[in-house]
């Protein structure tokens, strides 16, 4: 098992910089997600860790050892692509054992390893089955087994669940995390799906346009997004942004949007006048007749226990998550009250979060 360190890592393709100056450490046994939209540099980062791509600059250390220019085969890392690629003419045991055969491991020892791997994945009963006869889930388990059987120092996974439908994906997320609990292998997982990252990872790196926007635990990233990009990328529906103009002083405990005074966590960073943004999560909004921010109900979407109500305000469209027992009429005027201790403030020009009592030194851990 291993710690992975990425130091000042950069990758350019001609004029295009895919990854710029990345720094992070993945501690031994961590499930680490690289999250971002397509083209953000997450896959390139993973491929450099794997040795499938050479960095333009920077270093990669595996357990303290510089492996930046080692070939992929010399890094003792297992790379899992879309999990379904199995050899159709081999049975399950042969598929799982294939990497050991390539290594030239003696047959008895290999057999033991295969059995142990199958036990961890709970597919011992399938060892002599043809892969073509397997269900989707079992095929996926076999593909994982093939990656695990070498006992690599780390697993690198590139959108392994991307091709699956939503329900099955959820099931596999649970299984991958359970498996991680059992073998505690360092795992680097690339995805554009916030749910996968949130539900499985211990730590998440959010990337955008080749840059790291934020590193943190799922809950930190959700509660204290470092930028508007992160706030918008995480959460469904994402964080609401109310645009306003104003200046901020350290020690202020309220902001003014037009004539409405809104209580916020104590501000710790001054801002001379300019465009600002108040960030509010949908579940931190309630309707209140006395609230100064007002709007008109545009639509309500029933979701069982809760409903998402969309309200048009002068600061833009706002979505609130409310109990579905509440009756809401399209077209009615409502006041929006915010849970003040969980509000976020952003600089509209840079998009970065402004420091407050509850939104402390967010940054690039």
């Amino acid at each position, binding site marked *: 098992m291993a710690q992975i360190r990425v130091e000042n890592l950069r990758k350019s393709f001609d004029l295009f910089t895919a990854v710029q100056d990345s720094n992070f450490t993945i501690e031994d046994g961590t499930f680490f997600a690289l999250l971002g939209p397509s083209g953000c540099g997450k896959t390139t980062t993973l491929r450099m860790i794997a040795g499938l791509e050479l960095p333009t600059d920077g270093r990669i250390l595996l357990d303290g050892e510089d492996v930046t220019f080692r070939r992929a085969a010399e890094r003792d890392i297992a790379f899992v692509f879309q999990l379904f690629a199995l050899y159709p003419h081999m049975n399950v045991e042969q598929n799982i054992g294939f990497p050991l055969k390539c290594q030239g491991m003696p047959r008895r020892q290999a057999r033991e390893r295969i059995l142990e791997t199958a036990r961890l994945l709970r597919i011992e009963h399938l060892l002599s089955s043809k892969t073509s006869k397997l269900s989707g889930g079992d095929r996926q388990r076999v593909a994982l087994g093939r990656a695990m059987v070498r006992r690599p120092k780390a697993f690198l996974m590139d959108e392994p669940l991307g091709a699956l439908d939503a329900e099955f994906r*959820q099931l596999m997320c*649970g299984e991958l*995390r*359970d498996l991680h*609990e059992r073998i505690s292998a360092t795992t680097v997982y690339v995805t554009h799906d916030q*749910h996968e990252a*949130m*539900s499985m990872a211990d730590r998440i790196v959010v990337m955008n346009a080749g840059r790291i926007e934020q590193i943190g*635990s*799922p*809950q930190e990233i*959700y*509660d204290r997004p470092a930028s508007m990009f992160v706030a918008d990328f*995480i*959460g*469904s*529906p994402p964080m609401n942004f109310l645009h306003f103009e104003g200046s901020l002083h350290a020690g202020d405990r309220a902001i003014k949007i037009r004539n409405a005074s809104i209580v916020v966590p104590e501000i710790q960073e001054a801002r001379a006048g300019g465009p600002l943004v108040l960030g509010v*999560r*949908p*579940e931190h909004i309630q309707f209140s007749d006395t609230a100064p921010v007002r709007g008109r109900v*545009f*639509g309500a*979407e*029933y*979701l*069982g*226990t809760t409903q*998402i109500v*969309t309200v048009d305000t002068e600061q833009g469209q706002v979505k609130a*998550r409310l109990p*579905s027992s509440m009756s809401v009429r*399209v077209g009615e005027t409502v006041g929006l009250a915010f849970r003040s201790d969980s509000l976020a403030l952003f600089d509209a020009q840079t998009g970065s979060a402004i420091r407050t009592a509850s939104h402390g030194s967010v940054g690039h851990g």
Partner: protein
Amino acid sequence: MGASAMASVVLRHVSKRFGPVEAVRDLSLAINDGEFVVLLGPSGAGKTTTLRLITGLERPDAGSVSINGRDVTRDPPGTRDIAFVFQQYSLYPHLTVYDNLAFPLRSPARRVPEEAIRKRVQKTAELLHIASKLGNRATRLSGGEMQRVAIGRALVRDPSIYLMDEPLSSLDAKLRAELRLELKRIQVELGATILYVTHDQVEAMTMATRIGVIRDGELLQLGTPREIYENPSDRYVASRLGTPQINFLPAGLIPEAAMPVGTDSIGIRTEHLQIAAANGGGIVGRVHRIEHLGDQNHVHLEYQGQMLVTLADPHQPLQAGQDVGLQLIHPLYFDATGRRIADTVH
């Protein structure tokens, strides 16, 4: 049904078979004027076949289809007063957005004057927020805009019913969420009658006036989203709506005396399984895994070998391995065949 005088489309005991496969089985459904009915089911459930039976692209083996009170079972597709939106938008790439939208009205059979077409296209484009794109080539649009145009091409007409076959499924999640809300707004604004098929429960719950849950060609339950969610008729329907899925427990594992006779299993929605103090007796589960979603946590628990999921505040301190007491708030009772048993206990 008394409302059938108002019905736009009525299917009566319709069946359709393809070789050995019974695609639609004795299906009866009345869609009222101005309703947004969503047929929800997995692929192969018979949703698309039902749409095709209404359009006349398929003929039923048994039963009848009527549109606006007229039996059209034997009528050819072109004569039925219907507009169809497919999953894959198929626009004319060489035409502008305007001409794409005007196309259905320019059909020689319809002979709509050009001035009336202009008004209609303009109004539809405004409704769909694509009025500024009317001069664009269809190929110079984003995916979301193309799908708006495809929907618009149905909306320029004023048929008895719009049939839509998973029109949002090829779009990314964000765009889908946006268009869901738009489509519902447009439907209400126009008072349009829509039959929409999907496998996406969120689309069904958020847009439908009524949902029909369909499986293996059979309509299992028809009702408002709230009725279907709160009052499912069987285990399958109960499991079809709600994320995470409803929990099921064998009746034998519930230390509750007051269960209706014949209860084989109970269903507990995640929000109705509440974590209480562990010493309260009753059901005690062990926390297996905590899944973060940001606004809430999904807590996976084990109870007597059964995995259960409940919801918790993200800041509630819970750890894997911890024992917690569980309270069942609104259990649903099912018999051995999976049918819901009326709750006579309360």
